[in-house]
């Protein structure tokens, strides 16, 4: 645990990628394989299921620190991180356990899951007493699932590749699925990550997907497109679907469905199970899982409702039926096709989908008059959008909202399928439509977490429920947002919040409304769970409207007009 705490301290103390890389390399070289296995798991974003209920963790820590509850709460508000707060409040221990990360995880922490509260309350303090403050904070972060240290998966991949002296792309492939909940890190799994490359590696991949290739945002004036991208004929243009990016892996008679987070989600989409029958072994498709109903894609909100469910009832499946819109073929007849040009992959994909549908290639095009026929299809092609030139495509893109898509994807016809956000073997661009935007008033503020702890950076925004000439009108909250401001703006807003506080409710302050921000969001839906009757997706601050008085902020009417 101590060595991992030292690694954490080194990573936390720097913003330089090279320094982080060096820290990880040093650690991976020194650490016993079973400890390194767990370190990779956490650094690459792995989160075990909750080990101890948060409430119990807090209560036990509060008692062990000998503090009243309110003082624990005050402390937590100042620190902004539960694990750190507890580590600062518990009595300090001067000797620290020599047991490694693996022993801590496997023998001390994982067995805590599911224990009755009384037993947990008894077991935790003696565990804590074995750790000095840095190790204790780290241990608590592992328990709360709040471990974050600012290294990307790509950086972990590079560190491992350097230790193993092999191609980082190979390591990326081996790391796929490593952080999935079903996988338990072990000395063997770490050795497998850094083993020399072998010929039968491809044959032993089981249900593993490939690392996802990701798109870059395209932000340029349409006039510059031809200069930047060449003619549209060099590109495959598709709609940008608002769903869950996924790979369908069919091997050895089985189907695995993986989400972009490299999480195995097969069980969440039982309707895809029948694709196991029609996809031949040794095929991997890349596409988007969407809710598909009445011959068209449904809002993401509908899909989201079923993601969170533990059990999928017939009713849920009927309300939000899932389908895959396929757009790439990564493996065919057991062969890795990622180094073939996209045009070739796409041509083959069209045949695969057609065979699976038992029909001519069905295009998931809502303008398609056969839309009703694809009502029950669970695998469709993401259609290509044809345009005479970029202006023509830009015009078609304006209909994105009506189609329920987020804009367009531009994929180089000759591009290979890269790893993550690489650009060296061809590029995918996401050409999104501008977000919705309204001018809203800041009415509540709460202190942030982590780097923003103790600054008021989490805000609730409101719009007016009546026109400016209505003397009775009030501000109705409709969205929370905390991103989009520069550090300097954050400090300024923090000062204004403190100056204009009206009331404090626990960690939240209400303020005299003086600040107007342009809020951007990606989607909007009616909602009876919100006071305003409206729910927005991905709200964030686009800019601070210094020029706008509060009276001129937008109204609920403006928002309602945006509803689909």
């Amino acid at each position: 645990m101590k060595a991992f705490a030292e690694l954490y301290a080194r990573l936390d103390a720097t913003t330089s990628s090279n320094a982080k890389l060096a820290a990880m390399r040093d650690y991976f070289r020194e650490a016993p394989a079973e400890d390194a296995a767990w370190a990779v798991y956490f650094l690459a974003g792995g989160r075990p299921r909750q080990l101890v209920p948060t409430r119990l963790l807090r209560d036990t820590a509060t008692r062990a620190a000998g503090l009243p509850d309110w003082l624990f709460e005050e402390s937590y508000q100042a620190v902004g991180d539960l694990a750190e707060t507890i580590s600062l409040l518990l009595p300090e221990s001067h000797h620290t356990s020599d047991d490694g990360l693996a022993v801590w995880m496997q023998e001390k922490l994982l067995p805590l899951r599911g224990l009755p509260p009384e037993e947990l309350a008894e077991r935790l303090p003696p565990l804590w007493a074995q750790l000095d403050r840095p190790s204790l904070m780290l241990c608590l972060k592992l328990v709360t699932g709040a471990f974050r240290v600012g290294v990307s998966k790509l950086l972990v991949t590079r560190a491992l590749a350097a230790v193993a002296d092999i191609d980082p792309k190979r390591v990326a492939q081996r790391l796929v699925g490593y952080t999935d909940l079903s996988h338990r890190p072990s000395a063997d799994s770490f050795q497998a990550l850094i083993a020399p490359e072998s010929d039968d590696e491809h044959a032993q991949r089981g249900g593993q997907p490939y690392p996802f290739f990701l798109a870059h945002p395209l932000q340029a004036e349409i006039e510059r497109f031809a200069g930047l991208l060449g003619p549209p004929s060099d590109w495959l243009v598709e709609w940008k679907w608002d769903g869950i990016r996924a790979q369908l892996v069919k091997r050895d008679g089985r189907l695995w469905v993986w989400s972009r987070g490299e999480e195995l989600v097969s069980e969440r989409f039982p309707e895809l199970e029948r694709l196991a029958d029609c996809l031949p072994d040794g095929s991997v498709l890349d596409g988007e899982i969407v809710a598909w109903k009445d011959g068209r894609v449904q809002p993401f909100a509908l899909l989201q409702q079923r993601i969170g469910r533990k059990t999928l009832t017939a009713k849920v499946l009927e309300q939000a039926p899932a389908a895959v819109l396929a757009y790439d073929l990564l493996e065919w007849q057991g062969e890795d096709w990622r180094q073939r040009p996209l045009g070739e992959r796409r041509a083959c994909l069209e045949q695969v989908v057609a065979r699976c549908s038992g029909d001519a290639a069905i295009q998931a095009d809502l303008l398609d008059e056969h839309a009703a026929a694809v009502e029950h299809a669970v695998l469709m092609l993401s259609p290509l959008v044809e345009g005479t030139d970029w202006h023509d495509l830009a015009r078609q893109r304006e209909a994105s909202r009506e189609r329920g898509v987020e804009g367009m994807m531009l994929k180089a016809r000759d591009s290979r399928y890269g790893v993550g956000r690489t650009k060296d073997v061809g590029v995918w661009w996401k050409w999104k439509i501008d977000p919705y935007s309204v001018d809203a008033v800041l009415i509540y503020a709460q202190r942030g977490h982590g780097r923003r702890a103790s600054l008021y950076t989490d805000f609730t925004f409101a719009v007016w429920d009546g026109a400016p000439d209505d003397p009775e009108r009030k501000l109705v909250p409709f969205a929370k947002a905390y991103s989009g401001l520069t550090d300097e703006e954050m400090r300024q807003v923090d000062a204004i919040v403190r100056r204009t506080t009206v009331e404090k409710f626990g960690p939240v302050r209400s303020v005299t409304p003086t600040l107007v921000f342009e809020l951007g969001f990606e989607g909007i839906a009616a909602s009876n769970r919100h006071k305003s009757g409206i729910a927005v997706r991905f709200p964030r601050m686009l800019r601070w409207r210094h020029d706008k008085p509060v009276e001129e902020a937008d109204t609920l009417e403006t928002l309602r007009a945006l509803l689909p």
Partner: protein
Amino acid sequence: MDLVIARPEGLYCPPGDFYIDPWRPVERAVITHAHGDHARWGMGHYLAAAPSEGILRTRLGPDLPLQTLAYGESLDHNGVTLSFHPAGHVLGSAQVRLEYRGEVWVASGDYKVEPDGTCTPFEPVRCHCFISESTFGLPIYRWPTQASVFREINDWWRANAAVGRTSVLFCYALGKAQRILHGLDADIGPIVVHGAVEPLNRVYREAGVHLPDTLYAGDLAKNDPRLRQAIVLAPPSAGGSTWMRRFGDYSDAFASGWMMLRGTRRRRGVDRGFVLSDHADWPGLLWAIEQTGAERVMVTHGSVAVLVRYLCEQGLDAQAFDTEYGDEEEADLVARQESTEGDAG
């Protein structure tokens, strides 16, 4: 009778007709210590502890109308007996003891309970009512020992010097800087100080505090090879300024009690944060309050509400005093703008 009340000008002693650390110009000001939020311009008369004279005159002018008393020496004014007692915060910092008709009040100003070798250590003074600061009035603030912090600082400096990288340590110019100088291992390399620190070093040395030899940054050329082995002490305001350009490759750090929290440390954007404060931590505050034997405690600047509530729950009569004292480091860390409110939360 209350010997001290809060007035718009500052903390006021009605029977004595004088103020303690006023923030607006008044006729008579008793000054606890020389930090800018406690010792301000424009008072008719100043009274302070003798060891603070050098710093007060350096900061507020050589002709300051200042009268001083040695620690423990008393003076009678309008029937109030006044004396200064060491607060252990910076050189010359003092608690003010007031006695009137058998009632004793002590105003602490800012204080720290751990002795540091650069100023006279804090001495608890028995009283009926104690006026305490609460800058670090939360139980999350428990300082590591000074010895371990200085070991960390010296290790960091040594590691940087080994690879020829300048170590720039930001710290408040009065008190903190001298305390760090006192704890540095001068064998590691040259010690360089910013122009804001140098005059205060002189005062400390004149007062007999041992500080290692220092070089004034302005005397070194931009590419002076000595800089590569050096540690540089500079006020936080120098960070990000053109002044920093003289150091090619450097590692930076910040020394403050606020560095206890990871979020503050990261927001500060320096490579390292060292937990070193001139203020009492939570156990220090509680110990100091207990030592006074006071049944009544008036809490000023910092985590006022928290400390008041906690003390009340311990059976003391605790109340809040509204003041305009701040914390220079926090002002620099958290606000950095014209906000007039301290951090009430």
